């Protein structure tokens, strides 16, 4: 499976006046199951717009998003369903992405039912428990009756991942999925994400401004600035031999625990 963005551009009308904002300019990107791809850049660089393009959430101004060579815009109903099942999202701020009035069990169960992954009550419950198990929220019985506000930030983030993987996707688009978490929880969620790659072959497009994390977990990096991908390459190459001045300045601004005397 190959998820591809080809020469994608997205222009928004500016809020005031007749101006236009080109949020993404002729971007090219590839993601595959089992691969950890990162998009880094600062706020306003267009990285979240690119994430939403990958998810088919906003129409493109030009270019295309393709899954195994079939453009999203040309997909029939069945193909579109296939795409929706296989490309899932985990977004930042779990409290904003979860319905505060639904229990965790209902939140995940609904997805299972809507996508007809299981149809019987028992079948749905089993799927929900399995997904919660994958993200380490065990025993599942302790969590299905809880509401989002009864969970910690890290647990809520895990619920979002459970909700994404319950459909057994091949690629997860994660937009700032760990940025708001404490170090220990962040390490836990990243480890979980790596584990899902090993066990289920999940691939990631990981959008973040957190460079140390990228260095640690990504295999391939795209650097975005002002809507353009200014540099791309294997993680090692980007971190050891960055060519673009912007990438260099990003790397130079990362703070270290070990302060020189």
């Amino acid at each position, binding site marked *: 499976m190959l998820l591809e963005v080809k020469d994608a551009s997205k222009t928004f009308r500016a809020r005031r006046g007749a101006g236009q904002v080109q949020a993404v300019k002729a971007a090219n990107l590839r993601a595959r199951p089992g691969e950890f791809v990162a998009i880094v850049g*600062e*706020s306003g660089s267009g990285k979240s717009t690119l994430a939403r393009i990958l998810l088919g959430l906003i129409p493109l101004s030009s270019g295309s998003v393709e899954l195994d060579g079939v453009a999203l815009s040309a997909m029939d109903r069945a193909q579109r369903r296939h795409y929706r099942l296989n490309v899932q999202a985990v977004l930042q701020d779990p409290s904003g992405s979860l319905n505060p009035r639904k229990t965790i069990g209902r939140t995940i169960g609904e997805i299972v039912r809507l996508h007809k992954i299981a149809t019987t009550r028992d079948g749905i419950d089993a799927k929900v428990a399995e997904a919660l198990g994958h993200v380490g929220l065990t025993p599942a019985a302790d969590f299905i009756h809880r509401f989002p506000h009864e969970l*910690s*930030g890290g647990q809520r983030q895990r619920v979002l991942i459970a909700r994404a993987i319950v459909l057994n996707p091949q690629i997860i688009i994660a937009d700032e999925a760990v940025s708001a978490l*404490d*170090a*220990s*929880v*962040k*390490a*836990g969620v*990243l*480890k979980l994400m*790596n584990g899902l790659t090993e066990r289920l072959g999940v691939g990631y497009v990981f959008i973040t*401004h957190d*460079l*140390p*994390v990228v*260095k*640690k*977990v990504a295999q391939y990096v795209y650097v975005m600035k002002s809507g353009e991908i200014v540099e791309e390459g294997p993680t090692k190459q980007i971190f050891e031999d960055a060519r673009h001045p912007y990438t260099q*300045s*990003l790397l130079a*601004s*990362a*703070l*270290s*625990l*070990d*302060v020189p005397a």
Partner: protein
Amino acid sequence: MTDSFLEVEGLRVRLPTGPRREIEAVHSVALRVERGERVGIVGESGSGKSITGRAISGLLPANPRVRVDGSIRFGGREMVGALPRAWDEIRSQTVGMIFQDPSTFLNPVMKVGQQVREAIPAGRRSGRNAASDERVLEVLALVGLTDVAQLAQRFPHELSGGMRQRVLIAIAIAKTPDLIIADEPTTALDATVQAKVLTTLDETVRQLGTALVLISHDLAVVANMTDRVYVMYAGRIVETGATREVLSAPQHPYTQALLRSVRSLTDEDTELWSIPPELRREIDELVTGGVR
């Protein structure tokens, strides 16, 4: 009597969480800040570090069920139980504050220059009952902003996040306070902007000899900005010492665990490590003695 500029002892803060429930967010905290000293408070979310920061700036919610016990003294002046007017005085002269999200602390319908002007203390006012334009621009320039004359005429929403945070620093230092309390001042900013804003904050407090209390979950920020650090867990201070020593040779099991997880995110040869639940229970037991 002590010579410390700020002396906090046995600080306890209880907050209501429901009609008949409350939590003790801060449980017996002692800390001190000397004149011109740069002190960090680190901890995870929920550790009580922000509530401590709010308590020492007198900015806890004005709710009779919010209870503060213990002692907070500025230059020997007891502030626990003090009237709101006394806190106003402290905040208008002695303590400046910078918070994570500048947009909520800036007035959206007031020009930036005017907001800085309001922060300049009465003693410096001219006959027009307001600080001079010159002084306003001077303060804005001090925090590394350029084209200050134009900038002073703009509204907060016309500025970028980094610029807004600088304006907030400008407002905090405009009254030349003795102490600045900065709670996650750069957490919402991009890495390159964070580096610049921290440099600005660093240079400004150095130049003015202002003491700094920097509250953050980001150990790297604290490592780069402070001389001494307090580590908080479950509303308590579990370890304190010179920042460099605490971060290189932590003594408390919690600090050790926290550092191990932080380093696992950056060090190449170590596996990702999060504090396992059993260890957390042990730390809980050790820190709280079973009382939360």
